[in-house]
């Protein structure tokens, strides 16, 4: 009896072609985006979304066209941070503070409602991950960003969404990692950074958040030394707009350097 690969007649469903078309759609939609940066951390509660939103705003104030894709599908906070109205239409993308464009699952959910999908409730863990990956693909492939200088991707804690992102983009994006000073955060972020490096992502630097308070440790310096990447900012508990402007300028400078090296 012949095996799967020995059957060569065209598949009318064309499932692989459909998957290929999805990937082309993502590539075409992102063609006008000069740079994609994933903001990530292996740990929750370190302020990834807060950093993402404020870096985006600072870049926009500096004259860059900026978009933010809120990839934290289960805990979307970017619309609130950019003051985008709940249920703002996603097509074209909503525009928030300082002209930052945004797409978020928060625009599809009712206020306070958790992300849930229709479908058989029994053993939903089997298909829920695929649903979330598919939603991320739609966010990447369906938003009409237009020409952007930077698209920031706000990733949730953990590495699953980053891996999905690499698969969908077909190319690992540069990453900006966020940590707090504690050794616990360092250890969790280290795993995420290791995974990102192993996937081939460029590490743009480390943002050490919540510095100067009761959180003790040297996570930023430890990780910077270990991964030979700079601490691009230490964010105090009460940052000013200047804090973010300096970080944005540093990231822009790093981008120019990287572009010049190509």
């Amino acid at each position, binding site marked *: *009896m*012949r095996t*799967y690969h020995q*059957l*060569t*007649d065209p*598949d*009318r*469903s*064309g*499932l692989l072609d*459909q*998957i290929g*078309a*999805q990937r082309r*759609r993502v590539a075409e939609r992102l063609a006008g985006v000069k740079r994609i940066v994933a903001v990530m951390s292996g740990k929750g509660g370190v302020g990834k979304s807060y950093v993402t939103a404020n870096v985006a705003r600072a870049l926009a104030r500096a004259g860059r066209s900026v978009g933010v894709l809120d990839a934290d599908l289960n805990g979307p906070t970017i619309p609130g941070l950019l003051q985008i109205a709940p249920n703002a239409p*996603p*097509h074209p993308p909503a525009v928030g503070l300082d002209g930052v464009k945004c797409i978020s*699952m928060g625009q*599809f*959910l*009712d206020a306070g*409602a958790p*992300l*849930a*999908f*229709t*479908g*058989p*409730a*029994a*053993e939903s863990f*089997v*298909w829920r991950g*695929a*649903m979330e*990956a*598919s*939603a991320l*693909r*739609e966010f990447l492939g*369906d938003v009409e960003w237009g020409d952007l200088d930077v698209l920031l991707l706000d990733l949730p804690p953990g590495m699953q969404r980053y891996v999905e992102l690499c698969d969908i983009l077909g190319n690992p994006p540069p990453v900006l990692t966020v940590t707090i000073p504690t050794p616990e955060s360092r250890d969790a972020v280290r795993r995420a950074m290791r995974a990102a490096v192993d996937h081939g992502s460029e590490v743009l630097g480390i943002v050490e958040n919540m510095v100067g308070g009761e959180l003790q440790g040297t996570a930023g310096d430890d990780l910077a030394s270990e991964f030979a990447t700079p601490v691009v900012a230490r964010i105090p508990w009460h940052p000013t707009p200047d804090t973010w402007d300096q970080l944005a300028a540093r990231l822009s400078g790093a981008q120019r350097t990287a572009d010049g090296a190509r």
Partner: protein
Amino acid sequence: MKFLCVECDQQMAFAERELPGDGTLAATFKCPKCGRVVAMLTNPMETQLVSSLGVEIGGRTVPAEPFEMVRANVVTTVGLSWSADAQERLSRVPSFVRGMVKKIYADYARERGITEITPAIMDTARAELGLEGM
């Protein structure tokens, strides 16, 4: 996934797709040589897994709409309400299982496109799901 007519050693061709509306899927495949037809039947979980990939069994006939999967599959509370009678009946369920019972009825309604849960819907769900006493 492909189907082989072993007797003819021929790859069977996709013929038809049916969505009965209960979360299952039926796709038929026909042998181009002998004409034998087989049906592939998937349970709701299997159907959902295919759906989650954003692909169409049998091929896509129209381009995907923006956010097609998200709009079709993300649950919003808009469109699902509880009648006053249904709410009163739910309130009589012991509190330690009330959340679970409410979710069962809500899932039942969503899977069937029901927009308002009434005592009659609850009765039907109980009978169909074997939940007598809830």
